[in-house]
């Protein structure tokens, strides 16, 4: 039971952090593209790179949480 709670907290807080970070990043991209449309493609490329970096720790959390839910928990419950 505690294993499921731990996995739920990992998934939830990670998703919260990732969502807020991505939202800020995307907002800045749209603002910058509106100011200088000719940099649109270059900024979009940089945005995808940063999106992958922001996602890193939450996705590591998702991987560990899935491992907890499907491999660690069933023998215990």
């Amino acid at each position, binding site marked *: 039971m505690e294993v499921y709670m731990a996995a739920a907290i990992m998934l939830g807080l990670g998703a919260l952090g990732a969502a807020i970070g991505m939202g800020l990043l995307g907002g800045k991209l749209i603002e910058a593209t509106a100011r200088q449309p000719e940099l649109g493609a270059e900024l979009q490329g940089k945005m*995808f*790179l940063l*999106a*992958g*970096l922001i*996602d*890193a*720790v939450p*996705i*590591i*959390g*998702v*991987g*560990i949480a*899935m*491992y907890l839910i*499907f*491999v660690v928990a*069933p023998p215990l419950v």
Partner: protein
Amino acid sequence: MKGLAGKDPATTSEYIQHHLQNLVYGRLPAGFERHSEQGHQVLTENTWTLAHGADEVAAMGFWAVHVDSMAWSIGLGIVFCLVFRWAALKSNPSTPKGFINFVEFIVELVDNKVKESFHAKNRLIAPLALTIFIWIFLMNLMDLVPVDLVPKLLMLVGVEYQKIVPSTDPNVTMGMALGVFLLMLFYNIKIKGFGFVKELTMHPFNHWAFIPVNLFMELVGFLAKPFSLGLRLFGNMYAGEMIFILIALMFAAGAGGSIISGGLNAQLFGEGTNVFLWLVTFLLVCFICLLNLKGKLSTGKTALYSLSLLMISGGILGLSGGIMQLGWAIFHIIIVTLQAFIFMVLTVVYLGMAHEQDH
């Protein structure tokens, strides 16, 4: 399908755990009890063998090899080397066509990226970046092969467990990150010499009394780089593979159902899925898509035929499973490429930082 201790995995969690189990070759200690269909067997001495379940893997300890990860990763590396070498030998300076054009495009892309981020002179960096990008991309691409296809075909040959995506094995990703870490150490010491120690101990507080604080903070930052590099790739691929496996459960969920919910699979074969029925379905769907690519079949008809094939083979559950797999696979293509790209860019940036002499 043989699960733990030779039984068919009847529960969903056994199915999932079966798909998450690597093919491990290691040493079982003497006195270990092996369970198989033939009965129990107590080992009289240390034996080197393939593991037959998760408990045997745990008994093998640290010095056990994941044979499937090694085979797939080394095999894909050899494929990359052979294909790119063939393209390099056949390339004509005037008019590259087709695949050779594509290879040149990739090489130019990596070259430009390296030129942007790396400002010293080192002949290793661009080939290293190309290898990292294409090799990780090929390893991640294995994730798009249907979940049960290769494992079931290999089980017919007798290989019980294996995973075809090497980057879902944390050993593989952390191994590559360790390689990058060793290169970082080597170039830091080679280019900066004693300046490297000065950098670690005197940034950000430039006073000899703060050396322990500086050292601690700089070491944490320095070690976090390869650690996060390896785990980022692992986490993305593991989560993606897990979702593929969860969606693949839909196909077997119609087992034992009516012809509407389970289709031909349920009617003819009862419990569980039959590999040949789904192999035939898969090949037919591939053939239909190929006809569409060649222009002989309109897109609307392609969708109609593929969906009705899925409906016939697996019923409503097979159809919805197929659509969900398609949706997730399309999203996962972005992740696959992006993660390989990020690994490459970060490697180049870290090695660039190792070559920087700021005074």
